[in-house]
């Protein structure tokens, strides 16, 4: 659960300095100007967008090539230090949280576009390339990269791969996992391995499928081949208001049941609408719920589905349906939606962004349960979410200055995840498990499930050098390792206890 607005990000666990030998090695690999270990730099990298976790890394290294990454990995191994890869640090689950004394790998220098092949629908990039840059590069030719997380103007492709990032349009187009064709991976032993290929159906295990969304635990990705798509000919958007989330939820179900696959269908409740208005000045009415929907495709198809969807909205109780007059107005509507998280800062000093998933048909029930919890706790909850795929983003509003309120907000946000699980859903649809939700993994998965995932991790990374303390609820060793007890880096970070 993230607190992008936390009043006072926690004081970071101070850096445990790395040895002079390590600094010397790193400097010789990437050049001394790309090895950061002054106090200010270490503080900068202590947190990602989840500011309630903060641990200063031992050193920050900015490699410029696969070869340099290999050398850094070898150095980490020689010094027995953990390695934490990080993109832009926009993650909301503490997925890029350092561990004390770690080498933190930054990718700001690995931001080249290496190859664009429009005819074959792929593009090869370095992991530090910004998500939106990819689509910007392709736009003149009429192509784009589909996954569009709300942070797309800042977040990197490498971070997207690690988190299997989604976005509003994944209902029709899928997630990062569906749009990564190949990746170059540096493994713990310093080997460089190519997984997948631009040519379909690479023989062997689909390790690329496991790598995407593995949250940096399996190795360091130094090159990514992305699937790129021809832009749809037409996009039709509408904004519809409803008396409550119940009617809006029915509308979503009816649209889906009619056979329409919307490109995106987003829901906001009253509080989220109020916040978005306050932030953007949009003239949205303050109603119980609103839907923002895109359909796209060839003109005739988009026209037809848009007309049908509007009709269904009216039939299911829409108060008003607005169709943007032009592209500018359309973008403004989307701006209202995409700014909804930050906008909540206008109506509450602090808030927690939750990310959970439920079957679409449970939307009305789950929102009801959340409303009851909210009333019970006396804490407001704003809901803005990807309704088409049941990916909720409840925002739990609180005032950190009020004694005990932050803890109650945390508890409420956690309870929402349990509601999601009771309805057969997931503890995260796109923000990842990271350090934050690792404890909840044991509520979603059983021990045999986690053990199976852990075995896969051990196959890639027997020493568990990469991004320790994330995903798994308790530290696990790979195989039997007799000998002197060594505390796990996650234990040292205070993130986990040995059970």
């Amino acid at each position, binding site marked *: 659960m993230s607190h992008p607005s936390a009043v006072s990000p926690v004081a970071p666990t101070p850096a445990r300095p790395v040895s002079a030998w390590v600094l010397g090695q790193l400097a010789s690999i990437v050049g001394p100007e790309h090895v950061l270990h002054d106090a200010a730099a270490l503080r900068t990298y202590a947190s990602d967008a989840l500011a309630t976790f903060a641990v200063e890394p031992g050193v920050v290294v900015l490699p410029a090539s696969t070869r340099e990454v290999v050398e850094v990995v070898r150095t980490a191994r020689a010094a027995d230090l953990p390695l934490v890869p990080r993109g832009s640090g926009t993650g909301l689950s503490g997925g890029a949280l350092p561990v004390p004394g770690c080498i933190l790998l930054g990718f700001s220098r690995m931001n080249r576009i290496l190859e664009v*092949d429009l005819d074959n629908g792929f593009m090869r990039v370095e992991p530090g390339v910004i998500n939106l840059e990819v689509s910007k590069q392709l736009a003149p030719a009429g192509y784009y990269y589909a996954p569009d997380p709300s942070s797309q103007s800042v977040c990197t492709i490498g971070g997207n791969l690690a988190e299997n990032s989604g976005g509003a349009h994944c209902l029709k187009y899928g997630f990062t996992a569906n749009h990564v064709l190949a990746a170059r991976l540096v493994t713990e032993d310093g080997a460089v391995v190519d997984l997948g290929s631009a040519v*379909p159906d690479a*023989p062997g295990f689909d390790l690329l499928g*496991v790598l995407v969304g593995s949250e940096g635990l399996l190795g360091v990705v130094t090159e990514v081949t992305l699937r790129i798509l021809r832009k749809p000919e037409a996009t039709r958007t509408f904004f519809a208001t409803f008396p409550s989330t119940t009617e809006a939820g029915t509308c979503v179900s009816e649209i*889906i049941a009619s056979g329409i696959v919307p490109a995106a269908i987003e829901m906001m409740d009253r509080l989220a609408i109020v916040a978005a208005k306050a932030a953007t000045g949009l003239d949205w009415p303050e109603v119980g719920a609103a839907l923002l929907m895109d359909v796209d495709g060839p003109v005739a*198809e988009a026209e*037809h589905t848009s007309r049908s969807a509007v009709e269904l909205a009216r039939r299911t109780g829409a108060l008003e349906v607005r169709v943007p007059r032009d592209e500018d107005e359309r973008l403004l509507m989307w701006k209202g939606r995409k700014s909804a998280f930050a906008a909540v800062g206008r109506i509450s000093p602090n808030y927690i962004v939750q990310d959970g*998933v439920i079957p679409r048909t449970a939307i009305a029930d789950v929102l009801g349960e959340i409303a009851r919890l909210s009333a019970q706790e006396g804490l407001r909850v704003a809901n803005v979410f990807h309704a088409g795929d049941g990916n909720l983003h409840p925002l739990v509003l609180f005032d950190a200055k009020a004694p005990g309120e932050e803890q109650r907000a945390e508890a409420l946000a956690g309870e929402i995840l349990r509601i999601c699980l009771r309805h057969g859903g997931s503890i995260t649809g796109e923000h990842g498990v990271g350090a934050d939700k690792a404890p909840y993994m044991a509520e979603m998965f059983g021990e045999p*499930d986690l053990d199976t995932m852990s075995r*896969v991790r051990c196959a890639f990374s027997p020493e568990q050098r990469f991004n320790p303390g994330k995903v798994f609820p308790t530290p696990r060793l790979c195989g039997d390792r007799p000998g002197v007890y060594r505390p796990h880096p996650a234990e040292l970070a205070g993130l986990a206890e040995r059970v």
Partner: protein
Amino acid sequence: MALLGQPASGDDAILGVRPARVLRPSTLDEAEEVVRQSAGQGLRLAFVGGGTELELGEPPAALDAVLSTRGLARVVEYAPLDQIVIAEAGLTLGALQATLRERGQMLALDPPWADRATLGGIVATNASGPRRARYGSVRDLIIGVTLVRADGTRARGGGKVVKNVAGFDLPKLMVGSLGSLGLIASVTFRLHPLPEAASTVLFSRAAPDLLRRVVQAMRREQLEPSAVAALALGADFELGVRFEGFEAGVRSQRDRLLGLSGALEARAEPLDDAAAGAFWARHASVREAPATFRAKLATLPTEVPRAASEAWPALREALGAPRAAFYPTLGLGFVAGDSGATDALAGAVTRARAALGPQGGRLVVHAAPPEVRARVPVWGAEPPARALFARVKAALDPQQRLSPGRVAGGV
């Protein structure tokens, strides 16, 4: 009964490797128990569904018993409004589609032999058909899996919601794993609405280069076909392009493609339902009719003309009753026929690989007589991630009891 199984017959052999027994669990609990007991006895296992793709891969290096999934054929949960289904691995795709059709839905996979191919087998072999052009392949549609590990541990990955990033993606790990990482016991798929309308346009005589030009023209025009298949007619092809969706969109796209034929200097005609049915039946027979040799050609989409004019003729000359289907938007081709002289066929495979290789293309042998297999590696070049494959295999099947050696790289 399931635990003991029955004595195997010659029909139960996998690529000539004959097991002693066949195990037929009829519930997931029984399957788990059978695998656990097998582990206790150190039995080497292979998992078999409909048996449609048993020739894919190398023969298992050792085999004591075959576990048939055919008794595991229930729909566990079907939630039409959530557009997901959970089904046991032994259910055939055809039976599943019949259930889904009643609610106007489908699993958007159309691999060959739908009436025999099981869901588990389709996942394990990463089987696909032309619909992949629009909906993606198995990895894009599978959202959850229950597997039974070599040691009998039942584990779950993914979930039953489409959007879910909790934990490693075990469902994708199972895709193409040929049963060598565990028994795929049940699978969860996302579903799609059955299209309201469909229409196929036929280019009745297409030279290899036209395949590429049609694809490029459609992309330029922002048309979105749901399937594109080119069936070999000697050196040329008949090219079918199918549009699916709502009536208005389908009609418009069909007419626009027909309008492009002039600029493409090609003859295109709209097919009525009967003619379209006949075209797609011809396609099915290319993929499904009995053959002693089958191969999948994979290449970049722009290289399809080269595959069609160099790799395919090499194979054609070495096969009896040769046939081929290319999916030019995807860069895939399927060749089948009756193997004649071993030397000629092995040489043809080598020549086809040489034609595909420089641009990163591949040929995987899906079926061939043992003499041919002895001459050409079925998977082709060693996979670059072979060492990592072996480590993943060892992590999940440390005693190498599940179809060892079957996967690319001899893993």
